[in-house]
């Protein structure tokens, strides 16, 4: 099976998560090629070529990740390359651009895949539905099969000793659509992901006595996990966290894969905001705290002691 893996980048470097797509493709077939699009992407293509033969669509018309042009080029490459499997890591980039490309290629697409199985000659894919409450096993009919995978599930393969060949892709600029224009991006470099969108939310409650403590403990843990921060109403009331972080019935409703409730008691108003989280883990000093009745994992302890230990453990296991 010929697989084409689409490598995502932010203009400067390849995004780490793209490696998961590579890992998935490798698990299915030997014949893997990677594709990088953009302008002035020589360095990034070279980086990608460490893992597989690389195709580079380097053109001024592709300077910005504009969906109509990029999808057009991707579809072209897939057709000429006769790829049967198109893989990318499930990010907003992939959903936007690879999704459109799939629409140009017949629509046999599965997104957010978290597992697979080759059985009876067909590729069976596992993907979450109903905000992760259900895992469905599906197969795709038609070719090519376009798949986006969750970055946390597949391992990034090791780079090869010697880099692979790089081939340039000719881009027919005249044939490119021109109805979209990229104006700019307000990069969220230092900011954490939004609490309603993040995969992991680290949330703090009344146990935290000051904004400094909150940042030092909840903030650091969130950064270590690439997570968003949240808080209960108590902290917002106390002026320790801003209203935008409040999770709950009168705040934000979130449904991350992991909700870490630190020093939160678990009143029903808070529950209403995070009950659809896939996994809830709580750390609280009070063994009677209602949050424990609503968690998957619980640790009875003082957050001021346990959170630093948690951060340390995460750092040491890197």
């Amino acid at each position, binding site marked *: 099976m010929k697989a084409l893996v689409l490598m995502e980048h932010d203009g400067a470097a390849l995004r780490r998560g793209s490696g998961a797509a590579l890992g998935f493709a490798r698990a299915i077939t030997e014949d893997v090629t990677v594709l990088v699009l953009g302008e002035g992407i020589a360095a990034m293509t070279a980086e990608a070529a460490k893992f597989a033969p690389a195709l580079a669509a380097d053109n001024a018309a592709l300077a910005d990740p504009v969906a109509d042009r990029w999808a057009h080029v991707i579809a072209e490459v897939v057709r000429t390359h006769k790829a049967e499997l198109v893989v990318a890591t499930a990010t907003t980039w992939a959903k936007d651009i690879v999704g459109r490309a799939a629409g140009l290629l017949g629509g046999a697409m599965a997104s957010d895949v978290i597992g697979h199985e080759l059985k009876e000659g067909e590729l069976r894919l596992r993907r979450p539905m109903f905000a992760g409450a259900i895992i469905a096993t599906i197969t795709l009919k038609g070719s090519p099969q376009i798949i986006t995978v969750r970055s946390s599930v597949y391992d990034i393969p090791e780079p090869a000793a010697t880099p692979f060949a790089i081939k340039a892709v000719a881009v027919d600029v005249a044939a490119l659509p021109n109805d979209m224009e990229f104006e700019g991006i307000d990069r969220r470099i230092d900011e954490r992901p939004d609490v309603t969108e993040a995969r992991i939310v680290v949330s703090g409650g009344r146990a935290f006595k000051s904004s400094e403590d909150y940042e030092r403990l909840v903030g650091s843990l969130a950064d270590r996990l690439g997570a968003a921060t949240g808080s209960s109403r108590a902290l917002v009331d106390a002026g320790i966290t801003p*209203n935008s972080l409040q999770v709950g019935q009168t705040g934000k409703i979130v449904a991350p894969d992991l909700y870490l409730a630190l020093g939160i008691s678990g009143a*029903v108003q808070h529950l209403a905001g995070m009950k659809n989280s896939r996994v809830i883990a709580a750390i609280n000093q009070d063994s009677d705290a209602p949050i424990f009745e609503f968690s998957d994992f619980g640790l009875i302890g003082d957050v001021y002691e346990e959170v630093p230990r948690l951060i340390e453990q995460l750092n040491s296991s890197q």
Partner: protein
Amino acid sequence: MNGELSREIFGNLDDTSRNFFYVLALVSCAVFAWGVWWRMRLWRRGRPDSEHIDWSNAFHNICTRVLAQRTLRRSRPAASFAHRMLFWGFIGLFIGTILVGLEHYGSAALGREVTTPLFHKGTYFVIYEITMDTFGLLMIGAAVWFARRRMRADSSMEHRTPDWLVLGLLITLGVTGYFIEGLRIIRENTPMPGISFVGFGCSKVFVAAGVGKTNVDSIHFGLWWFHSMSAFAFIAALPFCRLAHAIAGVLSLATIPRPLGHMEPIPMEEVEKTGEVGAGRLEQFTRHELLRLDACVSCGRCEDMCPAYEAGKPLSPRDLVQDLRGHMETPQPGALHGETISAETLWSCTTCNACNDICPLGVRPVDYITEMRRHLIGEGELRGAPATSLQKMQRSGNPWGLPSQDRLGWADGLGVPTVKDNPGFDVLYWVGCSAAYDRRVMKVARAVAQLLQWAEVNFAVLGTEERCTGESARRMGDEFLFQELATSNIETFSSHDVKKILTHCPHCLNSLRQDYPQFDGQYEVTHHTQFLAELVAAGKLKATTVMNEKVTYHDPCYLARVNGITEPPRTLLPQNLEEMPRHGCQTACCGAGGGRMWFDDPASERIGTGRVTEALTTGAQTVAVSCPFCLTMMTDGITAKDSEVKVCDVAELMMDENG
């Protein structure tokens, strides 16, 4: 006068004068009638009321509320006393004038000479004169007291310039009345002048000032006309100034407003026909509701009681009513919603009913608010967390959208029977959404259930068949969501033949008692404190009589004020209860009613923080409550103030004694 103890009526007035008098009387009455008609035209723009006037009740109400001035009992003791004096003084003098009229025209009709009065003589006359002079003093004294208060301008009472006219006229009428009396005494040499003691005093002063037989007639004449003109001015001006409350207020107090906590249903067919719901325009209020706008004298008692106003919210019940009144009077008013009354004002209300309760004129600010909320909901104007709560109530049967299958989780391990387990139950324990899902409130339900079990009460719960009563949905203005929930619950009640219901939530209690009968759901509904008090009285349970720490009790609005239940919870608490200043029916709202529980307020702006401070000021170590909303609000409020004071339900406090 032939030795009869009486006085001449219309003395010193010739026929011309008298006729002129009658003409002026007619004119002033005509102006008065026109004024009243003009106001009535405004009221009649409303839609007809569904309630028919119960005349015997109206009569009773006029006697108690108007004549006995009962509605003034509960607030502002000084002003209330002064008003009673003013009112009774004026009414007394008014009746006196009528009696004189009767005497005069009765006599004439019977062809008697003016020298032989019909009844205005003898002992009657003595009593009459003393009484009138006394009433006059009451009236003038009260008017002067009000004038002085007005000059200080220190209360929430709204002061308007025309009010000086009113007070001025009252004082003028009173004073000139005495002057005329004094002059008449001089003129007629009335026997036993001392019975008109004030007039008598005036006559002495006049004589000392040089009034005698030569000039008394002209002075009397002049002053009499001045007095009459003042009286005519008073009558004519009545409908156009603050005195109009004498008409609208009486009508308001006579027609029984609904009991507190009652809401009128809207038939779905009507909405389908008109496409409109609630009050989007002034004309969509009822005629009685518009009439009540004129009954408001802007005294501000309601504002003083309003918890939203206390918390700095943009809601003053008095301002709301006055704004609506202004809107009613303006020929080309702007829009009712947005221009006259803002949505934020309407959403600030907790429907605690303190304003409805305290108004001496029977005005019901909460009723306007809920009618206008119905319109906002109908137009989809509610956004954010409260709208989501309504949506969750509709979809999941509880405001948090938690699974309905989990409604019996609170009873884990207690062996609480459901209606399926125990179909022969006597009383249904209605658990409510808070106790079903809020971990803290669950402990209250567990306490109640255990107490019932220890007392061997034959009860059952609905379990997963229970859905939100819809009380807060109705008070937020979503009438049809309420009706959907109510009819669903009533069907469930019917299928299990429910007759008696016991609940620990005053909001559920009120809804089951007052709302549900409108949809053919008639049940005997009891609050858990009442039920437990009965069990204690029957010796089946013990009340906590002594606690080694101070306890205070926070009366829930919907239990104490709206449903009058204040004693049963107190019988279950220690005798050395530390009462808060605002307790019993005068309780102050915790801030969660009217759907406010589902709104998001920063801590500093939350309604009810004043109440929390009041509770902490008592020095009690435990605050007892008997409502899940109060429990949540007081707990959160006290925790926010970093206090260690405990908040518990009355039932929880009974656990140790009975376990």
